[in-house]
């Protein structure tokens, strides 16, 4: 077990060094959510009536988008390791699939915690003023980390089967659009009724609702639990699938 932990933390360290030196990717993963936030707040925000200042409404959604978008890049780093034979070196050092993926996920969580913090900083600059209690902050951060972990591991599993960088990049694309049919940018009631079913029950919605509630110190009901349930479910699915896929790809 301690071997597995050492291996995972060594690989996480490697992942962090690699991403720190791939500044283009880090900047892109931060600039895009910030740009989107600016676009929504300043271009569309005036026309959207959410009952509060739009910046207050939209920031939790932007944070979730940023987290998901950044976590999705795990698919690319895993897929590159598989393609370039780096994984063969690890395997001859007797490193199994779990520490290999855990290392990638840990690096992704660190990377995204940082970029999410910076996006939050940018939100402050344009007038986002959360009124969360200390407990609310902790809960919000915890939920976001759980979400990043689940999405990272899911992306890692997808990275195991995508054979090109382009295919791995599709995960990022998907994660970028998932928050749109949710309450991230506009209230769900304003969407056509056939979308309500999906928008209300997709994993991102309870997460955004909880983030909004927790950061603004409003009642959240059971949405944090639903969000946590989604994260746990997705993580379980991802860990199981990735174990299977790793064995399949390295036969």
């Amino acid at each position, binding site marked *: 077990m301690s*071997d597995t932990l*050492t*291996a995972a933390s*060594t*690989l996480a*360290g*490697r992942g962090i*060094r*690699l991403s720190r*030196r*791939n500044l283009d990717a880090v900047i892109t993963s931060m600039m895009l959510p910030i740009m989107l936030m600016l676009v929504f707040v300043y271009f569309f925000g005036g026309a959207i009536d959410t009952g509060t200042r739009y910046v207050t409404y939209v920031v939790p959604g932007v944070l979730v988008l940023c987290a998901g978008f950044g976590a999705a890049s795990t698919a690319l780093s895993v897929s590159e390791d598989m393609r*370039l*034979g*780096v994984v*063969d*070196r*690890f*395997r*001859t*050092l*007797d*490193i199994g699939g779990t520490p290999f993926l855990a290392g990638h996920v840990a690096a992704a969580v660190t990377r995204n915690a940082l970029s999410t913090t910076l996006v939050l900083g940018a939100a402050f600059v344009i007038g986002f003023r959360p009124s969360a209690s200390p407990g609310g902050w902790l809960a919000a951060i915890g939920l976001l980390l759980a979400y990043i972990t689940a999405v990272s591991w899911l992306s890692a599993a997808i990275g195991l089967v995508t054979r090109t960088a382009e295919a791995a990049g599709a995960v990022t694309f998907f994660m970028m659009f998932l928050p749109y049919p949710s309450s991230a940018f506009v209230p769900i009631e304003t969407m056509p009724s056939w979308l309500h079913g999906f928008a209300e029950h997709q994993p991102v919605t309870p997460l955004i609702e909880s983030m909004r509630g927790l950061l603004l110190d409003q009642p959240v009901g059971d949405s944090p639990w639903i969000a946590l349930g989604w994260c746990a479910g997705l993580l379980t699915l991802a860990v199981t699938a990735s174990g299977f896929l790793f064995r399949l790809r*390295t*036969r």
Partner: protein
Amino acid sequence: MPPAIEATGLTKTYGDVRVLDALDLHVPRGTVFALLGPNGAGKTTTVRILSTLTTPDAGHARVAGHDVVTARSRVRRAISLTGQFAAVDETQTGAENLWTAARLSGLSRPAAARRAAELLDRFGLTEAGGRLTKTYSGGMRRRLDLAAGLVRDPGATQVMFLDEPTTGLDPRSRRELWQAVRELSDAGTTVFLTTQYLEEADRLADRIAVLGLGRTLAEGTPAELKARYAAHRLDVVASDEQSYVRLTERTSPAATRDPETRTLGVPTDGSAAHVRELLDTLDPGRRDIARFGLHTATLDDVFLTLTADKEPSRV
């Protein structure tokens, strides 16, 4: 002491292509063994099976005395692998790459740092150790890759697998890598390498197996193979284009051909009788051959002889 590598009846099929077809191998400890073959002969598959990365469909293999399927971890602790493409991270420095590998093989932080420094020194990379590996030359990268395979305690690596270690390297880097392989072998490590370069096998290996169609076509020392399959090569130069065409029709498929210089290389044992007979058979009218020369055969000739008739055979 069991042999370093012992394989019997290794078979592997991908889709409907039988990449390995009942391959047998026997490599004594402390020797350099070269698996020689063209692209697609099954060299990489053999290395992947022996280094536990792939399981065979049939057959058994033991490396350093352990079964490659049932005792994977034990095999992995006794081997190192340098694949066809240097598996080092471009945006880590040489030292960081080695440190990562050393930590992964279970060394403590201080031990990993010491080991990385030792290996950089041993492979002549101390000065480059602090630079990102994307600034390295192809040869430096391969040496780093080789070093990364040796991060365990010195002596722990009993068998070293090198899959086409010099493919794509310039002549100087190739020579440097050969030197590194010789030093490893002198230190007692068994080296199993694959190559398409006959010169490489000739220079480095104690024994060579020629692989074709997933089987061993021949096995022996470089000298044995040359003596057995083509001691000499008769080069005949045709007088003109038509002569070249006529000569080509009369030579065996084992001959080397060079239309540019209108030269054909025909295997021979080098005796006067055989050379005379060959010249008569090739040019009964005595007008097609302008000049000839007799050469000591290279492994290229052995290789062509063997892969031309595609019949399995052994020394």
